[in-house]
């Protein structure tokens, strides 16, 4: 018996994007690309490691909360990752019971967020960090390193489990607060609601402050300033070594890298970290030296003052409201404020600097394999799958030198042309997802969900979602990777596919932000609000529709970008 294919529209991929289905049944499903987290091709190591650890870690949390999405499947085509989600289905009574359970469990966790974080999750993450920190990578025997790699997989699974235990209450609290606020104060938007959450320090902003502080140190000494301003990014370090002041500055730089350098530009840690390649740091320093105007600490104080004003205004309006209404407001406000800080901090402790430790372990394995002439160079290890690496560490004699080199070339090649947003078969009816976390996941994965209907197209105007309030005019600067970020000039509008936390320092220079992917709660939107620059996110096509130097107007409240 053949299984009935789901009804829908078959998607024909572009001619330069060949698609071969390993299992032809997969072509009947809707496969979409997570353009928020992986706008670029994904390395085999990152995708296989995440499938192993994130998949298992998340699976353990699905029943804790009765989540709407049971799991996801991933396929790679031409280096790009495509996903489809498997939602929970059942009889109407089963659905209702699960929705009720989800609301109860997630709501209860949301109101205990700060306690859960301080007493349970953060200590556990710190203990995982210590495990990686205390292991002598370079001095370990091959057997010890292999055992360390295997324990790294176990630890990472638990770290992902914490990640997915955090997500549902975080997104629930933010979603419920914004809805509650808009219900209470008719005519106010989600952006207005988020004004009551802004201005709290978080790890993303702390990194921005540390970087800005470095730039102030550099400005104090002519030799250091000149070295950074006049040399290309990859020669600055050499030049700094030649002067005592430069050496002193380098030790400050090392301290910064110690604290914050274990991060790649995007989520995929298969690409070099800031510690290995400090070019992104130097690019930022060059820009801060050229335009030192905005002190991030001062901006944070401004954002906090605006927040306190907005809270006072809301409380004044609620003075005559029934107490259960006011109590609920205060409870949701406190939960959402914690949630917003944790939405950034979890990326530091987990996605970026947390999994930066994993990169170091894998890279050490790569060094050993390269030394044994089993890999062409250490970095090629990221073009193996985790299974292949473990096999190799345990003595398999398979020669993967050619394979890894070929994969590296393929991915490099793939990244030069755009990949389609969807493959397979687009269903007739959109997915219906009941939980805030599930809906967010479906949205960033680009799934066809109820609200995400495409906006009508208008000549000369792009529509996205409001990300951060305000209107600004400026020249567009399309930046696809952080390595390219040095092209952004003060006062220009940063146009990009997505922004991860490591991009935050650019927001001190940009006059506005426009992204292809993301929503109100994406990092780019969150940080834009902290730095109070207008942002329009999730336009779908800004990096393709806009070009460098074009004069545009960004309307962060309306969620539109107009070409002037």
């Amino acid at each position, binding site marked *: 018996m053949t299984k009935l294919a789901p009804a829908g529209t078959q998607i024909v991929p572009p001619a330069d994007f060949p698609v071969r289905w390993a299992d032809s049944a997969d072509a009947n499903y809707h496969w979409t690309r997570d353009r928020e987290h992986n706008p670029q091709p994904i390395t085999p190591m990152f995708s296989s490691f995440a499938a192993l650890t994130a998949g298992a870690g998340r699976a353990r949390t699905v029943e804790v909360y009765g989540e709407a999405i049971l799991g996801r499947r991933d396929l790679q085509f031409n280096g790009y990752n495509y996903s489809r989600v498997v939602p929970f289905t059942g009889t109407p009574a089963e659905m209702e019971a699960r929705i009720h359970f989800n609301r109860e469990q997630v709501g209860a966790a949301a109101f205990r967020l700060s306690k859960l974080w301080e007493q349970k999750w953060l200590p556990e993450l710190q203990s995982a960090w210590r495990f990686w920190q205390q292991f002598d990578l370079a001095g370990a025997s091959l057997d010890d390193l292999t055992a360390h790699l295997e324990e790294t997989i176990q630890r990472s699974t638990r770290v992902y489990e914490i990640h997915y235990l955090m997500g549902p209450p975080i997104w629930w609290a933010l979603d419920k607060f914004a*809805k509650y606020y808009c*219900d*209470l104060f008719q005519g106010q938007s989600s952006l207005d609601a988020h004004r009551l959450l802004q201005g709290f320090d978080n790890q993303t902003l702390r990194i921005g402050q540390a970087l800005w502080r470095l730039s102030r140190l550099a400005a104090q000494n002519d030799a250091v300033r000149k070295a950074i301003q006049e040399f290309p990014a990859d020669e600055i370090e050499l030049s700094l070594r030649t002067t005592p002041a430069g050496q002193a500055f380098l030790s400050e730089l090392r301290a910064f890298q110690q604290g914050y350098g274990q991060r790649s530009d995007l989520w995929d840690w298969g690409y070099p970290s800031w510690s290995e390649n400090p070019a992104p740091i130097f690019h930022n320093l060059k820009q801060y030296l050229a335009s030192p105007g905005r002190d991030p600490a001062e901006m944070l104080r401004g954002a906090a003052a605006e927040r306190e004003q907005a809270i006072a205004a809301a409380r004044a309006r609620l003075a005559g*409201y*029934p107490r*259960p*209404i006011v109590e*609920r407001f205060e409870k949701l406000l406190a939960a959402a404020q914690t949630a917003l800080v944790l939405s950034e901090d979890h990326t530091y402790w987990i996605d970026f600097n947390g999994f930066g430790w994993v990169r170091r372990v894998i890279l050490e394995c790569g060094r050993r394999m390269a030394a044994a002439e089993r890999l062409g160079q250490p970095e090629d290890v990221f073009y193996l799958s985790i299974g292949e690496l473990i096999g190799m560490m345990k003595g398999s004699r398979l020669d993967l030198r050619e394979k890894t080199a070929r994969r590296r070339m393929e991915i490099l090649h793939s990244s030069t042309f755009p990949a389609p947003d969807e493959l397979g078969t687009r269903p007739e009816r959109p997915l219906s997802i009941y939980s805030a976390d599930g809906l967010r996941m479906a949205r960033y994965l680009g799934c066809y969900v109820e609200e995400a209907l495409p906006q009508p197209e208008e000549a000369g105007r792009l529509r996205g979602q409001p990300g951060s309030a305000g209107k600004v005019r400026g020249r567009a600067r399309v930046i696809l990777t952080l390595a390219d970020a040095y092209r952004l000039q003060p006062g220009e509008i940063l146009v990009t596919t997505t922004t991860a936390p490591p991009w935050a320092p650019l927001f001190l220079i940009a006059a506005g932000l426009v992204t292809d992917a993301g929503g109100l709660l994406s990092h780019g939107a969150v940080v834009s609000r902290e730095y109070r620059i207008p942002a329009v996110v999730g336009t779908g096509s800004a990096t393709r529709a806009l070009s460098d130097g074009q004069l545009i107007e960004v309307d962060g409240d309306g969620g539109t970008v107009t070409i002037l």
Partner: protein
Amino acid sequence: MNIYPLGTTASQNPLRVGGKAAHLARLAARHPVPPGFCIGACTQLAQPFNQALSQAYRRLGQRCGAVPLAVAVRSSAVDEDGLQASFAGQHESYLNVSGEEAVRQAVDRCIESAQSSRALAYRQARGLDEHSGVAVLVQQFIPADVSAVVFSADPTSGERGCVVINAAWGIGESLVGGEVTPDLYRVSKDDLRTTARLIADKAVMTVACPEGTRQVAVPRALRREPALDDGQIRALALLALRLEAAQGWAVDLECSFYQERFYLLQCRPVTRLS
């Protein structure tokens, strides 16, 4: 002097202070009626009276521990709240009024409203003496968390074996004015068991604001939450039973809860009960 603090003997005379106020004055001795005073039916709005009103208002504020005190100012017709007709809603009332001048104006308007065509037409239609005086009741304003209307008999079926409670968020105006569909609770008089509990989608509520009160939307998260808990339902049912026994007729109560405290705002006969 035509100002009688609620609870004094004079304040319990319906010919002086109106039926509504007299009832409340009697109840105030035993039940948590918000403190206040009545202005007699034949009062002239002259200068000496204004001074007396200001003084009574200040004293009330001191007693309630809030200066200036927010008050509710309502008219109380001398033949209102009799068994034959309920005047509910036929006279003006001013809620959340603060300050001597504002209170004086509200009292003035209440007296004027007695002459308004709406109230006169009602009186004529009911065969009531159109020259009956109007008294004014000034009470501490309670910015209620939850308001309830309690009947010691089913006002629609006439069934006397149960207490019927309607409840909604906020001050009672949206509830009494029929602007919100309230929760409905039915309690058996025999064993005080809640026999029915219909939680409504309570879309609006009246809240206090600097201008007085206004009706606003209820956030979706609380629309379908029960306005009363079991303890509150039981307390209201018990009160209705006791008042019915004391009065000798089925009662229609207006109550509110504010900061864990309970207030009785109104007690009148259930009209149109067979």
